[in-house]
């Protein structure tokens, strides 16, 4: 006979609220008049995020514990990342709310009369809000899940809506649909690896929980074909999600094709969630087998940093450049996994947050630079923007400087702490490669800044549209975070240090 597992609903409440709101969102689509939907969806989504965040703060004050037997563990790092995902979602939805970036009717063929009619009728694909919320729920579950089934479910819950949303771009629709399909195919492919890896590990240990896996490794020594293959395949699934080389090939295409607000949200929040799960699996479940996985994660970290930084140089498209930059950042964060100490964990948490806000802000600005045909993502056409719109160009430069890790921005503090943790743990090579590839990366960030400010504007019709109030709020918050965490990093750093633990 099966006994229902004991669930602590109070601890799960932040996730449940988001899921509930997503379901309500679906009902809104079904029953509410078109004209009211967008506004209602926005209110529901933002409201749910705020409520969820409040509940999370309450959970935090109760202290951490196991929420569902061996499946979910609401602990420090988990709560921190849940909070980060919620903040990213809040900032992301503010940008997403500008429906001008989305296709009016996704089912219409690109360029067809039907599409033109949909545009004429002012239709909107407001499903994007509940989809985002479903993804957020998955992202909140992913970093706190402690068995392979839950991990897999969370992975799929967060991925499927993203596949869909990647295809919703209003302009260059074929590119967008192609990106969505690629993302879906490769995502399914990598999920299969993940699942296969989980199955092998089950075969090795006879359990699906991370705790059980640790015990099994401790008991038998970590030198079993099942274990090693399992670790490798599981890593492939995770490394795909964080966009590490050589599992990164989807990133530039998808980042470029997806509607830009979705790209920003996806880049920030998926990375936080996926790294949360990755950190948990390696710190908690596979800690005992570290000698077998540390070398290859280190190598992947090195190639990811190098390839991300170098490939970004030859990019001519702003979104692709940012995609490669995000690959390089994944490499930097991977060093924290190799370091495997508490400082590295807190540094990774800080880094994920700092990177996330700057990313959302940067992509939000990309949505604003347009010509008559929509967004202009060709880097060369941004020349001289600093003279036309000094404020926008300055804020964009701020985010780039943060990506580059220039002092007085949050990016510097993140890089500094993550590299110093790596140094502490004796991985000097990683630090050297990290610093060198940061230096390479500075080249293309600064090149953009140079183009913005120090080149004469070509006689071109691009302009910066005045964004909606919501987008403006989102960008301002991102900019404030970026500066504040650069000037007074201890504000967040202390929190990250308090939260840098996993509960077994």
């Amino acid at each position, binding site marked *: 006979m099966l006994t229902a597992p004991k669930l602590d609903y109070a601890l799960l409440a932040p996730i449940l609220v988001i899921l509930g709101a997503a379901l309500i969102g679906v009902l809104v689509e079904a029953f509410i008049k078109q004209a009211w939907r967008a506004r209602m969806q926005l209110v529901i989504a933002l409201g749910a995020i705020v409520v969820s965040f409040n509940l999370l703060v309450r959970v935090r004050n109760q202290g951490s514990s196991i929420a569902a037997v061996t499946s979910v563990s609401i602990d420090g790092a988990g709560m921190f990342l849940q909070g980060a995902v919620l903040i990213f979602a809040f900032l992301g939805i503010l940008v997403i709310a500008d429906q001008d970036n989305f296709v009016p009717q996704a089912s219409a063929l690109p360029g067809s009369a039907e599409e033109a009619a949909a545009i004429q009728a002012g239709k909107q694909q407001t499903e994007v809000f509940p989809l985002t919320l479903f993804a957020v729920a998955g992202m909140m579950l992913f970093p706190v899940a402690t068995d392979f089934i839950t991990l897999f479910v969370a992975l799929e819950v967060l991925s499927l809506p993203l596949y869909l949303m990647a295809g919703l771009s209003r302009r260059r629709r074929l590119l967008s649909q192609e990106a969505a399909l690629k993302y879906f195919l490769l995502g399914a492919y990598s999920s299969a690896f993940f699942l296969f890896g989980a199955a092998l590990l089950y075969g090795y240990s006879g359990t699906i929980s991370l705790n059980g896996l640790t015990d099994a490794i401790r008991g038998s020594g970590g030198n079993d074909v099942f274990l090693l293959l399992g670790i490798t395949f599981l890593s492939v699934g995770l490394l795909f999600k964080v966009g590490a080389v050589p599992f990164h090939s989807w990133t530039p295409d998808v980042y470029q094709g997806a509607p830009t607000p979705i790209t920003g949200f996806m880049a920030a929040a998926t990375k936080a969630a996926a790294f949360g799960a990755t950190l948990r699996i390696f710190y908690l479940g596979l800690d005992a087998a570290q000698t077998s996985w540390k070398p290859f994660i280190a190598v992947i970290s090195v190639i990811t940093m190098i390839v991300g930084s170098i490939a970004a140089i030859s990019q001519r498209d702003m979104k692709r450049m940012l995609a490669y930059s995000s690959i390089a950042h994944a490499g930097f964060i991977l060093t924290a996994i190799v370091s495997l100490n508490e400082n590295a964990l807190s540094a990774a948490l800080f880094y994920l947050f700092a990177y996330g806000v700057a990313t959302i802000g940067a992509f939000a600005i990309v949505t604003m630079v347009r010509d008559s045909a929509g967004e202009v993502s060709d880097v060369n056409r941004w020349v001289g923007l600093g003279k036309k719109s000094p404020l926008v160009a300055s804020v964009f430069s701020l985010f780039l400087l943060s990506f580059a890790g220039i002092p007085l921005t949050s990016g510097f503090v993140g890089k500094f702490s993550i590299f110093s943790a790596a140094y502490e743990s004796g991985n000097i090579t990683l630090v050297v490669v990290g610093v060198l590839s940061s230096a390479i990366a500075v080249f293309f960030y600064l090149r953009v800044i140079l183009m913005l400010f120090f080149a004469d504007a070509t006689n071109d019709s691009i302009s910066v549209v005045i964004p909606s109030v919501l987008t403006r709020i989102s960008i301002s918050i991102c900019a404030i975070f970026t500066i504040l965490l650069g000037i007074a990093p*201890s504000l967040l750093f202390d929190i990250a240090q308090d939260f840098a633990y996993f509960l077994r």
Partner: protein
Amino acid sequence: MTTSTNLVYLIALPLFSSGLLLLLGRKADKWGHIFATLVSGSVFIIGILEFFAMQGREGEARAATQKLFEWISVGSFQVDAALLLDQLSICFVLLISGVGTLIHIYSIAYMSHDRDRRRFFAYLNLFIAAMLLLVLGDSYLNLYVGWEGVGLASYLLIGFWNQKPAYATAAKKAFVANRVGDVGLSLAIMIAFTQFGTVTFAGVKEGASGASAGALTAIGAMLLLAAAGKSAQFPLQSWLGDAMAGPTPVSALIHAATMVTAGVYLITRSNFIFDASPTAQLMVVVVGAITLLFGALIGTAKDDIKKALAASTMSQIGYMILATGLGPVGYAFAIMHLITHGFFKAGMFLGAGSVMHGMNDEVNMRRYGGLRKMMPITAATFGLGYLAILGVPPFAGFYSKDKIIETAFDSGGVQGVLLGSITLLGAGITAFYMTRVMVLTFAGTKRWDENAHPHESPFLMWAPMAVLAVGSVASGFLLNSGSALVNWLEPVVNENHEHHAGHLLPPIVVSIMALTVVAIGVAIAVLKYRTVPAVAPEDVLGITKAARKDLYQDSFNEAVFMRPGQKLTAGLVNTDYKVIDGLVRLVGWIVQISASSLRNIQNGFVRSYALIMVLGVLALVAAVWMVTL
């Protein structure tokens, strides 16, 4: 130590006001100046309240601290953004905010025709905030932030009328000279950190007692370099004269009363370093002595009223620096002279501004003359400041300057006699050039041309001058009565009441000598300037020619630093271009090549992406296999 929660407002209010006025732009034009003045006034009131609160506390509890936030926390390097208000800093807080407020009021009228008056006031508030941070920081690093902040404010204000290229150049010159000093400060901070592991005043003080003589001397020398930059002391003095390009209220506040005295504050604050290193002290004394004569000599030949006053400022700060080099006895007198000087010099600068205001911005004193009839109030307030700087009893300078001369004589041995004589000589030259300024400006017959219509300045301008004149009269007596300031500062500068080596000369003798020298200086000036040619005569002594050219300070800097520096730069640029850039271009070329080959892999086909993934997986499996076998 008392913990306070109010100190932050001293800095936050003017900082906020400055930001507000700059951000609002033209929208704040109507009320910006009033707002800034009110903010400055309220900072002064907070300062007074803190002063009385401090008097109500006893002993150790007098100093108050406030921790704002943890600023830097990297490994063993811990710095809090924290404020410290003790007996020394309260003197500065009152001086800065008090004189600052008067000058705000004065500027309302002085700048009333300037279309950028709001921006001017925003910068003034920025200056007040930065200067207060400078004197309130509880560590060298916090002080450094304020130090740079006042440098910025000074730069912005000297170049306020930057539409004139000469003024913009003057601002740049001040900035560069200050940077040289700032390097000294940052080096001092770094040495202190490596030696003591901390940069707070308390921590360095604790560490200084056990530190090596070499380290202390190095820190002392670097601090002196910093002080020389900010306070226009030899050899970094050259910027102050040009800094007079700024609007006159700025010259009064920043380049006479407050910012340029930051060097004196820095040395006094670091008394534990200098007291423990006689070598560093000797350097301080030498710099002070050279500068006090240097400035005084330049002052004798300047026809520009503001430049004459600027040279005088340089010289008077030389006195203060010299006093700080004389050990524990000297600090209190340096600070006393600093405060009295703040009153009378600011007063005289405002007077000069008032004269310029009435004379169509004419600054050449040879085109003044007989102005006492047209501007009685300006003449009277200026005159009181004049008596104060001469050191005529009972005016302020008598108490503060005579104490420095006395202390110089008492420092013992040949050094004492030498320093005493230099300070006496300086007093004589001071009397000469100040009398020259008085006579050329206010006495004699009129030499101005037909277009000038000299008139007394409005109330808003002469009222601050009158208040400062009261300070020029009374501040010395008040600070000196019952050794008030000496006792007040004792906990900070560790003055122990034992009499050091006794007096070389009784104080009364020193005073008589000083007054005699002053009288001689005045007499020479009065006799020499009974008639004044409207154009400066050419057939003058070599020393006068040299003084007119600022004792060739600029030519010297140009020949010794600028030209070789430019050559060095050109050489380095060449090397950089050919050797280093060559290497970089090579690396860049390699990176470019690999970037475009990486680009080729990214061909857009899902099948090749999937293939790359499979290859990746195979490589991983192979790697794990190899590691574990």
